[in-house]
């Protein structure tokens, strides 16, 4: 290559290259940076081979580019013309791609991006939501050009910015333009770049330096790597412009040694630029000299701090020094030095080429331009995302990022790595810019966004970051050196279950000191993750300290296996699954019953939080824990004829339980296990509570409930039916009659009203969900019309709609004011309802019940939109005025919630109530203000789930046991692990785990279902259960 001596020669050179960049040329662009880890090498080789074989070298170009951004789908390729995007490409696909798409212009469906929800396929890159929602300015060349080719860079206006600056602008004008553009440093602190340049130019001295900080160290950030690998000349050109502006003749790029491809591409780029005379002396004949040297880091995070970085370039230990003087005054060799980040330099050329005004069109008032974010962690579309500054976090994570994998719940996103903070769900709609992020304790940082879901423990995250900064602290200043150690010690003991009351306050105090007193940015910002997790997730800290519980199931010292820890009653899941794999079904059922007396019920209707936590889910599908439980329980009832022995009575005290629902019976069962004599008082002629009177037969047959109640009774629990506890016979009377303690688990019997006009009790066709289901279950056969509308979004609403269809309704519509995402029902229930023909109207809220002569004739509904999230992170629905419209219906079922009915308590009862008309109890012991009387379950908390109801009963039993033994310690439902030897080895004990999907539990067809109340799900066969059980990874065995 010949040296380019003038700007005109550069322009001529560019024109000569234009043909190569012809957009109509047939071209395959393959990511050869990030995608290498998924076999991009092999794919490229296959393309080269195919081109050679078909003698297409002149016709088709195979271009090895940098990152396309959509790393989740690696290896990815793009095909011109047409900008066709293919994902998960393998070498075997290559001949077909060349033949069909490159030469034939036809699309290969299987390689095309398909929307995970709708399945819609979008062959053009520009139509894929991941790309469509981005504005790629800085990354414009990444994935388009071969980073090893200076020609391709030049052809796309490369080095035109420095040529323009040299020819048309004075250094002051360049600085003025950068200042005016509003560009702020992309490394993290967000200092205005133009101002920094001005300070450096104004500093005294003849020698000045430019330094590019390419020591991208924030865990979770990889945009600098992508730019260096995919478009290294853009960084060099930015440095050239900066050098011209501040009057520097020499520059350094300090790059991480952990980025070998970046080092390689930068080296090539520098050599090429030197060869063309774009680096060196008298560049483009303008009398401007500039050279660049590459410096490789040696593995020290603190070197990302600018003063430490300078020390490292000079060959010393990378320790920061106090500022001022700032590097702009005294940097390398004590000379004025301008340090900017990779992404900052890559922004410069568009400011010079297109003007500051154009640049500043994007962004917010205080933060201009675009920002690249690296999206990682628990998000579907991991990769690089460039968006205008100021878009909402929700847009980045959900629209571009595609949301959270495996249907799990978003918990928080960590912004700015170990210097930043977390942003919880309630702030998802906040604009992402430098200033707003700071207002909630996070920072923009370098743009790393690590998404965390419900399986991430926030205390552990804080500990993780502090352990990182502690080990990277250089040790020069005491607050950082000692403070990080102390914070780590406190956080470690909390995550190990040895936290103490007051630890959180102590942490906050140390954090405050470290923040204020540390020498450099590392120390000043490292307490941020601690402070922000305390601010938003204080409850998780408290749960670790007080109850030794980790809601995410990830703190190893507290958790034997995540499934067991997540189960509210702590069932030893891995061992019962291993029993099933061994064919020891009875022992499996007995093991479950150590914690839960209702395996057959929970095996059908539990919402199985354990499965969300199952580690097998990271590999393929979580274990079908619920279905396995059902299999073991059903086997027991089908094969074990003799009733179980009663638990031996070892205590003298007698305990009374009010209510024979899941909470009351669980409490009674556990009290019997503990050796007490127990009597349950039930107002109705049947036991089972809501299970018996509200859950439809097709989900939970009465015979199944009866089996389990018989089992509980056989273990020594006396149930007295038709014996209400009320003003005539009160809980106090029970105590007076010799019961040592009373537990009240009376459930929620009262349907809540909506309170809209027209909601008149007794209106013909207006029903309440709970009483409707109760009537059906007790055989009363209530009448429904042809068109049934159900209001609500919970279990009761869905049960009511499906029941209505079974009673002969032609159509059942569910109206819910929020969206599917906020609906507290499982996918199975929702999909079953859809299959049966239930129609859902989301974001629709009734405003009036319409009637004609005391007969329901419809509903008036208003459309809603989701507004700001509430404190729990659920977005609040807001009505859209003017969208009211009538819907014709002949039956309306209201199912918006239930509440406890306290009317059975005598008016003069001493029991304290909350302002929500529930009993006020101690959350740990469930003790009321009256000694000896305890209360729990839905009756206290409002409607929850069956397993939480069972857990409340168990907690009550443990609390009563402690009360009667005068033991004042806290009640804990502890995970316990039995040492059981199993014959059959499960997947977790084998050398490797082959991917294997879980089988679907069999169901009867939708058409047949709605004609009867027969149970929909038929459960696993023995063979299925055996196979499924073997997929367990036995996480519990990792702790020996």
């Amino acid at each position, binding site marked *: 290559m010949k040296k380019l001596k003038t700007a005109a020669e550069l322009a001529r050179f560019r024109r000569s290259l234009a043909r190569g960049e012809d957009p109509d040329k047939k071209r395959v662009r393959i990511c050869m940076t*990030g995608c290498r880890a998924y076999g991009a090498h092999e794919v490229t080789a296959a393309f080269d081979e195919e081109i050679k074989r078909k003698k297409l070298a002149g016709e088709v170009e195979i271009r090895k580019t940098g990152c396309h951004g959509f*790393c989740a789908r690696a290896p990815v390729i793009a095909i011109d013309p047409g900008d066709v995007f293919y994902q998960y490409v393998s070498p075997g696909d290559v001949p077909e791609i060349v033949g069909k798409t490159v030469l034939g212009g036809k699309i290969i469906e299987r390689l095309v991006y398909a929307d995970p929800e709708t399945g819609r396929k979008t062959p053009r890159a520009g139509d894929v939501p991941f790309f469509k929602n981005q504005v790629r300015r800085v990354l414009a060349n990444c994935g388009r050009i071969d980073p090893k080719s200076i020609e391709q860079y030049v052809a796309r206006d490369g080095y035109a910015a420095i040529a323009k600056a040299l020819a048309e602008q004075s250094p002051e004008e360049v600085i003025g333009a950068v200042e005016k553009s509003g560009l702020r440093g992309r490394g993290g602190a967000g200092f205005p770049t133009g101002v920094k340049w001005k300070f450096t130019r104004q500093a005294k001295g003849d020698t000045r330096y430019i330094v590019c900080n390419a020591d991208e160290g924030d865990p979770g950030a*990889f945009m600098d790597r992508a730019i260096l690998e995919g478009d290294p000349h853009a960084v060099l050109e930015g440095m050239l412009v900066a050098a011209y502006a501040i009057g520097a003749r020499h520059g350094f790029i300090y790059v991480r040694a952990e980025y070998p491809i970046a080092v390689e591409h930068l080296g090539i780029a520098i050599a090429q630029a030197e060869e063309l005379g774009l680096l060196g002396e008298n560049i483009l004949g303008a009398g401007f000299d500039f050279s660049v040297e590459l410096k*490789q880091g040696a593995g020290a995070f603190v070197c990302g701090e600018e003063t430490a970085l300078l020390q490292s370039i000079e060959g010393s230990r990378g320790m920061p020094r106090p500022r001022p003087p700032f590097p702009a005054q005294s940097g390398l060799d004590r000379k004025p030095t301008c340090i900017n980040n990779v992404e900052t330099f890559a922004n410069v050329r568009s400011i010079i080429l297109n003007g500051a005004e154009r640049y500043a069109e994007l962004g917010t008032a205080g933060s201009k331009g675009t920002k690249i974010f690296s999206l990682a962690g628990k998000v579907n579309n*991991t990769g690089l995302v460039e968006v205008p500054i100021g878009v909402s976090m929700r847009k980045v994570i959900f629209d571009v990022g595609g949301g959270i994998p495996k249907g799990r719940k978003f918990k928080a996103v960590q912004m700015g790595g170990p210097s930043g903070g977390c942003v919880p769900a309630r702030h998802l709609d906040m604009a992402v810019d430098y200033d707003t992020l700071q207002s909630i304790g996070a920072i923009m940082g370098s743009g790393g966004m690590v998404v965390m879901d419900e399986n991430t423990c926030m205390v552990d995250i804080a500990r993780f970051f502090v352990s990182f900064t502690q080990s990277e602290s250089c040790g020069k200043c005491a607050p950082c050196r000692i403070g990080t150690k102390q914070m780590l010690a406190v956080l470690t003991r909390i995550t190990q279950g040895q936290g103490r009351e007051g630890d959180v306050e102590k942490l906050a105090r140390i954090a405050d000191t470290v923040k204020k007193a540390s020498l450099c940015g590392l120390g000043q910002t490292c307490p941020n993750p601690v402070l922000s997790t305390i601010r938003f997730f204080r409850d998780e800290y408290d749960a670790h300290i007080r109850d030794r519980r980790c809601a995410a199931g990830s703190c190893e010292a507290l958790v034997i296996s995540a499934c067991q820890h997540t189960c509210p009653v702590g069932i030893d899941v891995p061992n019962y699954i291993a029993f099933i794999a061994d064919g020891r079904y009875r022992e499996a059922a007995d093991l479950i019953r150590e914690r839960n007396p209702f395996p057959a019920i929970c095996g059908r209707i539990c919402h199985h939080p354990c499965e969300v936590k199952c580690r097998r889910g990271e*590999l393929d599908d979580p274990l079908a824990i619920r279905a396995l439980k059902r299999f073991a329980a059903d086997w027991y009832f089908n094969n074990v004829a003799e009733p179980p022995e009663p638990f031996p009575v070892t205590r003298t005290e007698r305990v009374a339980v009010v209510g024979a629902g899941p909470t009351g019976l669980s409490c009674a069962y556990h009290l019997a296990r503990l050796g007490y004599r127990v009597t349950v008082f039930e107002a109705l002629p049947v036991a089972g509570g809501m299970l018996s009177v509200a859950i439809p037969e097709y989900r939970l047959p009465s015979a199944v409930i009866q089996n389990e109640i018989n089992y509980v009774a056989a273990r020594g629990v006396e149930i007295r039916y038709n014996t209400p506890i009320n003003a005539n016979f009160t809980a106090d009377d029970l105590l007076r009659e010799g019961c040592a303690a009373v537990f009240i688990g009376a459930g929620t019997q009262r349907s809540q009203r909506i309170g809209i006009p027209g909601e008149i009790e007794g209106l013909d066709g207006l029903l309440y969900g709970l009483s409707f289901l109760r009537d059906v279950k007790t055989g009363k056969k209530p009448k429904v019309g042809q068109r049934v509308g159900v209001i609500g979004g919970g279990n009761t609403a869905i049960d009511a709609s499906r029941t209505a269809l079974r009673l002969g309704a032609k159509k059942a519509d569910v109206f819910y004011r929020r969206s599917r995402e906020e609906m507290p029902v499982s996918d199975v229930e929702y999909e079953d309802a859809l299959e049966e023909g239930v129609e859902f109207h989301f974001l629709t809220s009734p405003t009036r019940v319409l009637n004609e002569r005391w007969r329901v004739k419809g509903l008036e509904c208003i459309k809603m939109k989701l507004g700001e999230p509430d404190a729990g992170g659920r977005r609040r629905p807001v009505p859209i005025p003017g969208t009211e419209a009538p819907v014709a219906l002949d039956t309306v079922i209201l199912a918006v919630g239930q509440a406890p009915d306290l009317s059975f308590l005598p008016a003069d009862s001493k029991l304290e109530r909350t302002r929500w008309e529930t009993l006020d109890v101690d959350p740990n012991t469930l003790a009321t203000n009256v000694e000896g009387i305890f209360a729990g379950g839905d009756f206290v908390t409002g409607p929850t789930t069956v397993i939480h109801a069972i857990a409340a009963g168990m907690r009550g039993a443990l609390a009563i046991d402690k009360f009667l033994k005068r033991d004042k310690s806290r009640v804990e439902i502890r995970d316990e692990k039995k040492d059981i030897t199993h014959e059959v080895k499960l997947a977790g004990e084998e050398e*490797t785990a082959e991917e294997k999907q879980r089988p679907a539990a069999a169901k009867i067809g939708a058409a047949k279902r709605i004609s009867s109340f027969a149970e929909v799900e038929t459960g696993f066969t023995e063979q299925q259960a055996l196979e499924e059980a073997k997929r367990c990874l036995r996480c519990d065995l990792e702790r020996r």
Partner: protein
Amino acid sequence: MKETPTTPEIALDKLGAIIGEFKGRKWALIPMLQRVQDEYGYIPEQAIEPVAEAAGLFPSQVYGVVTFYSQFYTAPRGRNLIRVCRGTACHVRGGRKILQAVERELGIRDGETTTDFKYSLETVACLGTCFLAPVMMMNRLYFGRLVPQKVNAVLKQF
């Protein structure tokens, strides 16, 4: 690794030439050390003094630099370098279990080398390939989206 592998005797005849490459260059200490490590796989103790002399520093200062940076090694390394990422994205996707699996398989801990010098194990703050999380590197190859059960299969390839 239960015991430290004994440091083998190494020939330092190339050291003079390496140092010579950096003669008269400013701020050459770290590049010089990197070059020495490229040659020997670690910074031999015997190299400290000559390097210090060439850089015009005390040996203690050179030693200070060597021990400050995590990528300089003072003991020989295994033929294969395993780097397990401990970055945030890997952490939330179970990186700790990957590290534990490697440690269990090889019987060495972070920073150690197997007695047969086949593998060295280290953790890095972030490999910058968060979309592969949890990820580990074997020499220059990436292995992503790991689960502990797959670790053995990766190790066996080397």
